[in-house]
């Protein structure tokens, strides 16, 4: 086997791997707009920080025994008082960072990063 053939085979495999990887990476990293859930439990939002693409609807569900709210600091969204198992949804149509908190327990905070 000539050096040229060996060279071509080596780089061929390497390129194939690169393209295979390149093909799978965007699929893994790509986030399509849809719905995402934030659970409110034990006096905290989970996840506390969420990264989502534009157009995603976030649903907050109160899994705690006591009432909570989800209110953005810039008044972009504001839930009513959520009792146990009640939900609130909001669709993020603009990119940006949206910080929010529970107006009954202001130390409970969260963040949604819309990309």
């Amino acid at each position, binding site marked *: 086997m000539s050096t040229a053939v060996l060279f071509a085979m080596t780089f061929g495999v390497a390129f194939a791997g690169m393209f295979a990887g390149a093909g799978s990476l965007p699929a893994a990293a790509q986030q399509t707009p849809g719905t995402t859930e934030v659970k409110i439990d034990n006096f905290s939002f989970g996840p506390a920080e969420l990264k989502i693409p534009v157009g995603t609807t976030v649903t907050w569900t109160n899994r705690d025994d*006591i009432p909570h709210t989800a209110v953005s600091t810039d008044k972009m969204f504001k839930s009513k008082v959520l009792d146990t198992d009640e939900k609130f949804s909001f669709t993020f149509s603009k990119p940006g960072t949206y910080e929010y908190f529970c107006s009954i327990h202001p130390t409970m905070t969260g963040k949604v990063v819309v990309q």
Partner: protein
Amino acid sequence: MSVNPFDLKTVVLAKHAQHVVLIHFPIALFMVAVAFDFLAQWGKSRSLAAAAYFNLLLAACFTVPVVATGLAAWQFALEGQKLKGILLMHLVLGCVSAVVIWVVFLIHLRARRHPENSLPTYRLSLEAIAVLLVGVTAHLGGFLSGVNGPG
């Protein structure tokens, strides 16, 4: 959201924090007043009766800012939305407790202004009911504020 607890702006504008702080005063004063009144009745002590009266006076006075800050928290933090569940129970029981504390105080005030009339014994039953009401309201308030959680 880090805050300096000694910053005046934090203290004044901390939404419903004032309610959570002030509520301890009428609870403690009323409980002590009732204890003194029971002891005064049992031991026929005028000084304990006087101590009960002044504790009741302060407890009744403290209910005013406590109810005001509670209602303000409802209006500002929750924008006056319709309450239900624990929040509604806390609001109703809190208002009823404040009224009963005032009624107990007025019974003592009336007896004090008319020394010829002794304090009615039914007040002790009313005081016991009031202690129960205050206790349940405080329990719900503690539950809401997250004393049993990291909130």
